[in-house]
């Protein structure tokens, strides 16, 4: 009996280890229609590339603690960052990637922030239980530990920005990663 249980355990472990190799060979091969974007020019390029395949290189500045499904890429300094989310084929971004230079291939996504979005976010923030997944993630140090006051200030700043833009929405661009590779 003990032998049988041991065999089942070994067999399961082999299956798990075989299935786990998926992300480690994430060689980010790019096709001809994949557009190169850079951290510094991302915001300028993003408008015309929504829902199109792109690749980008940068240093991982931050990985969200809530499941590792979001990271922020930086260039030489932290003044400009690009948000990257894990696509369906990526299990998670590991904390060990922080500080590493990586190349990400994925699809550029746009999240539109309009008055309705900000109203719903504000209502959510004012509830006693905060919901981390609501609102715009900035990737800056400590953004995940923001209190209600800081979040309301962020919403007010976005309302102000929206008003000044003269448009009906602001755009929050990010990349949904399909694969990534560490650049040595």
């Amino acid at each position, binding site marked *: 009996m003990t032998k049988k249980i041991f065999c089942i355990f070994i067999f399961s472990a082999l299956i798990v280890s075989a299935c786990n190799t998926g992300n480690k060979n994430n060689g980010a091969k790019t096709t001809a229609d994949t557009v190169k974007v850079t951290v510094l020019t991302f915001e300028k390029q993003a408008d015309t590339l929504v829902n199109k395949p792109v690749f980008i290189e940068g*240093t991982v*500045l931050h990985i969200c*603690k*809530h*499941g*590792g*499904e979001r990271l922020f890429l*930086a260039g*030489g*300094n*932290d*003044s400009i960052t690009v948000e990257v989310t*894990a696509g*369906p084929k990526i*299990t*998670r971004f590991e*904390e*060990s990637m*922080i*500080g*590493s*230079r990586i190349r990400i291939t994925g699809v550029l996504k746009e999240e539109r922030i309009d008055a309705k979005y900000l109203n719903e976010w504000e209502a959510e923030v004012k509830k*006693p*239980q905060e919901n981390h997944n609501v609102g715009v993630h900035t990737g800056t140090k400590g953004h995940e530990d923001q209190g209600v006051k800081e979040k309301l200030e962020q919403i007010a700043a976005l309302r102000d920005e929206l008003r000044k833009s003269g448009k009906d929405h602001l755009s929050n661009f990010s990349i949904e990663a399909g694969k990534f590779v560490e650049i040595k």
Partner: protein
Amino acid sequence: MQVKTLRRWNNALHRDIGYLCVGMTLIYAISGIVLNHFKSGDFIHPDYSKSYKEFKVTPPANGKADQAYVMSIVEKEGEKNNYKSFITGENYVQIFLKNGSVYVDLASGDGQVEKKSTRYIIKEFNLLHYNNIKRFYTWFSDLYAIGLIILAITGLFVLRGRNGIIGRGAWLTVVGIILPALFLLFYM
């Protein structure tokens, strides 16, 4: 079908699904405790424990951190072999290490080394709890959740008599429903 036969089926279902669910229940329960305390701020990170060490350095003369300055700090802190890269921000430099980072305020010279150590097993449990795997695991965990529903319902009818659902069991079941309802009532 007779009540006796129904109960036999009920108990067999409860027993076998119970055995099947043991592994996943332990995974979700253990990771649940960790994520609960992470959410309430007791843990900085659910997968890693972190330790901090403060230090003081002389700020760079021109207020800017270059490679040489960064390397001098890394060497001073004995982290030369762990060095990965660095990034500068407004009045600070953050140096990334293999197992943490170093943060230096370039105005005051105050520095902090943050070291991470992985909570092995818990990290893997959290990965399952968060459904980071997605794909087939979504279906598998749905099946587990359905198994829990069946366990809860069949559990009501395992025992007969005064300890069963028409006696003590009824009171305990009601208490188990009222408690979460009270939390919702007071905190919503």
